[in-house]
């Protein structure tokens, strides 16, 4: 039976058509992938199914009955639950509060937290979704937040589950767990619509896949009858090469030396515990590791955004430990921050104003007092060209760009300053293969012009593909080094789990 059928859905934002006469059929008990580039219209389509948007045209059938989904409440009634791309959790609330919000089942006007917590616990046991019912969401990792989102839908008894890019923010282990959970849910008779940019995941977990390009539905294929390359070209509309043409590195003099560095996180718990690291010009060093093992603190410390507790950071033979961010930047550092919306961009500034975020105070943009917006504009147009940032024009607010293009703008800004050390943190999170391909090329180009690159990513595949040397970080220390050409994901996984490196692969 078709639990979900969307016929001829069209949705416009102003003059822009995000969904153009899209058809989607989801069968009961399947995991149905939804694939498309950034901005293709996946989230929009799902938001329509969840009642957040109303389509201009088209019909929706749930369990073969035509329905008008006027809002999330309606969607819940129809058994539709959605895990949103950008988490929909109330930070200062506890896990339990977040789950029962909107469906509190109060007795005598009073919320029975004890009872609620028991129910949440029971549910989490039933599906093996480990959460701490009492924990405050602000204090738990993305993995658990993800599980909370799923529990929210299950608590409401949803049997049609929409997962919008759930894996974009997860570690390999967590992704493994999630896949398990999805299989389990399907066994329980649920149906899942699964959005991801990672073709591997689609191949390994899904039954069928619907591809969307620029708001139009391209095709629905059986996974058993297709492969990654076909999916990719369906999505992008051209052949995509997964192989990077990458010459072996030729390391020169060291650019960055980190010596027994210790940093506390912003709750003052030790995060980096006496870490040593050296990166040479002309090489890309990748850092693999389970999220929360000190990666963020390490980066922020190097950039001067966090004060180290002890240890030394030497950049271009200059001790930059604890210097102000700008001093360090000027010593030759470029930084692609992991959270592009928090650190990377001023969303309400125009693209061009964002392009000069690191250099606005320098010639030719500023004479020390005024800002020469003519020069800024020309420069912005140049970079938009060069890095093909898809934006109506240089004066569009960054907010209106797709994540992929927002990311390209940041990379343009950082790379074009030609820093001798470029730190790239999660540079491709949430981006489609096209964008990823582009970004990887750029990182390697930067290396080949004789600079050092530090790549921090949760995606093992990416780390192994792009880096020349890979260090595994565990509990704030470098647990060991591996050679990406020889290392296997299993080998890495072990190190990431804390076991010592077995000889060989090291510097």
């Amino acid at each position, binding site marked *: 039976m078709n639990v979900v059928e969307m016929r001829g859905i069209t949705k416009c934002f*102003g003059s822009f058509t995000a969904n153009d006469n899209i058809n989607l059929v989801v069968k009961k008990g399947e995991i149905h992938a939804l694939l498309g580039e950034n901005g293709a219209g996946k989230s929009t389509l799902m938001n329509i199914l969840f009642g957040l*948007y109303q389509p201009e045209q088209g019909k929706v059938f749930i369990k073969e009955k035509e329905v008008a989904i006027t809002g999330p409440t309606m969607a819940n009634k129809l058994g539709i639950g959605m895990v949103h791309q950008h988490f929909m959790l109330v930070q200062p609330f506890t896990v339990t509060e977040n789950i029962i919000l909107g469906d509190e089942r109060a007795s005598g006007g009073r919320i029975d937290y004890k009872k609620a917590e028991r129910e949440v616990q029971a549910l989490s046991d039933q599906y093996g979704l480990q959460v701490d019912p009492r924990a405050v969401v602000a204090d738990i990792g993305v993995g658990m937040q993800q599980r909370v989102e799923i529990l929210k839908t299950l608590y409401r008894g949803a049997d049609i589950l929409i997962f919008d890019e759930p894996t974009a923010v997860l570690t390999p282990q967590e992704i493994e767990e999630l896949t398990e959970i999805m299989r389990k849910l399907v066994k329980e008779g649920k149906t899942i619509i699964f959005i991801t940019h990672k073709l591997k995941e689609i191949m390994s977990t899904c039954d069928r896949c619907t591809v969307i390009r620029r708001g139009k539905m391209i095709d629905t294929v059986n996974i058993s009858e297709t492969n990654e390359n076909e999916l990719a070209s369906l999505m992008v509309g051209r052949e995509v090469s997964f192989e990077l043409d990458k010459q072996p590195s030729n390391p020169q003099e060291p650019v960055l030396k980190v010596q027994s560095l210790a940093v506390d996180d912003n709750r003052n718990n030790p995060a980096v515990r006496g870490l040593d690291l050296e990166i040479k010009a002309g090489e890309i060093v990748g850092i693999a590791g389970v999220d929360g093992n000190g990666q963020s603190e390490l980066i922020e410390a190097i950039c001067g955004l966090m004060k180290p507790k002890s240890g030394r950071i030497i950049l271009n033979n200059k001790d930059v430990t604890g210097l102000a961010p700008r001093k360090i930047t000027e010593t030759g550092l470029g*930084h692609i921050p992991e959270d592009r919306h928090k650190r990377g961009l001023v*969303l*309400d500034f125009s693209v061009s104003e964002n392009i000069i975020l690191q250099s606005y*105070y320098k010639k030719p943009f500023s004479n020390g007092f005024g800002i020469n917006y003519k020069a800024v504009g020309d420069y912005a147009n140049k970079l938009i060209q060069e890095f093909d940032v898809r934006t109506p024009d240089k004066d569009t607010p960054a907010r209106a760009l797709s994540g992929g293009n927002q990311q390209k703008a940041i990379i343009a800004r950082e790379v074009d300053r030609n820093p001798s050390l470029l730190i790239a943190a999660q540079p491709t999170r949430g981006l489609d293969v096209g964008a990823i391909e582009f970004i990887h090329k750029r990182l390697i180009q930067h290396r080949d012009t004789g600079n050092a690159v530090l790549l921090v990513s949760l995606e093992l595949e990416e780390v192994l593909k792009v880096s020349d040397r890979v260090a595994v970080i565990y509990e704030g220390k470098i647990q060991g080094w591996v050679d990406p050409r020889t290392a296997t994901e299993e080998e890495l996984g072990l190190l990431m789990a804390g076991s010592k490196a077995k000889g060989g692969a090291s510097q």
Partner: protein
Amino acid sequence: MIGKLNRNSTLLSSIISIILGMLVGAIAMLLSGYDPISAYGALFSSVFGSASDMGETLRTITPLIFAGLAVALAFRTGMFNIGVEGQLVIGSLAAAFVGLKLELPPVLHAIVALVVGALAGAIWALIPGLLKAIRGVHEVIVCIMMNWIALFLSNYMVGKVLSNNSDSTEKIHPSASIRVDFLTDMFDGARVHLGLILAILTTIFVYVLLFRTKLGYELRAVGLNPDASEYAGMSVKRNIILSMMISGGIAGLAGAVELLGTSEYLAINPSLPGTGFDGIAVALLGANTPIGVVLSSMLFGGLFNGGSNMQYVAEVPFEVIRIVFAAIILFVAANFVKQLGNRKNRKKKGEKASA
């Protein structure tokens, strides 16, 4: 708490809003048996009427422009400077001090008084700025408290320092006055003074500062996204403090200008002048843009000055004007006209606008 007027409010819709606001006032008058026609007649006749009326209107507008700019500038850096009120009082106090206690050659005396007034306002604003930057104390409380402290300090100084136990000081030395004959004559006798010109210059200053300078770029960046600004090597604290001080400086200047140009003396006051709060309305109605501030000041000043003539001629209680103005603010802020015009279309736009 950054306030922006609804993005898609246009000049036309603003004008319609103003008319709607006056209609509200007219209804209020009719209900209580007054004659709106003659009332508004009186209002306009005094706004555009005789030179001196126009002069007094300009005089009313002057401090509003300063106050509005002060509020707007702070807003741009994410600070809600509800303390313009107090900074203005302190500005007047400082200017009065210079105007009375110092003996200086004409032009210089006035300049010194203005500068000291601005500095005093800046220092008064520095306190909430500092507390916000280093202790994270919410600026709104500190500002509200500083307003009252300013009032009582000023009253104390008037009685015990600037006069001997009198209700008001002597007039400042003529050398410190910024009234000039050519203006006074142009608007036969009205107390228009150089403050008006200063206000226009300050408007240009704020525009250039915000949108043409390095500092302005930083101030706006910090206001929109402190984390990114820090990442880009700006000092968030420094910018917060700076924007409060500049804002306070402008407020202080307003106070000085009022004292040196309009009243020329300082009197004890049982309550705060209110100009600072009017400034909030003016700034927000003007969408925190310098030109917007000037326009809304003109509207505001025109209404309030015309209002007293309306009371004089048509004997309609002055309060009607407050009602009218409130209605206008609401209509503009809610962008009522346009949204009613096409609710459906708005919905889509709405979805595009970001939260």
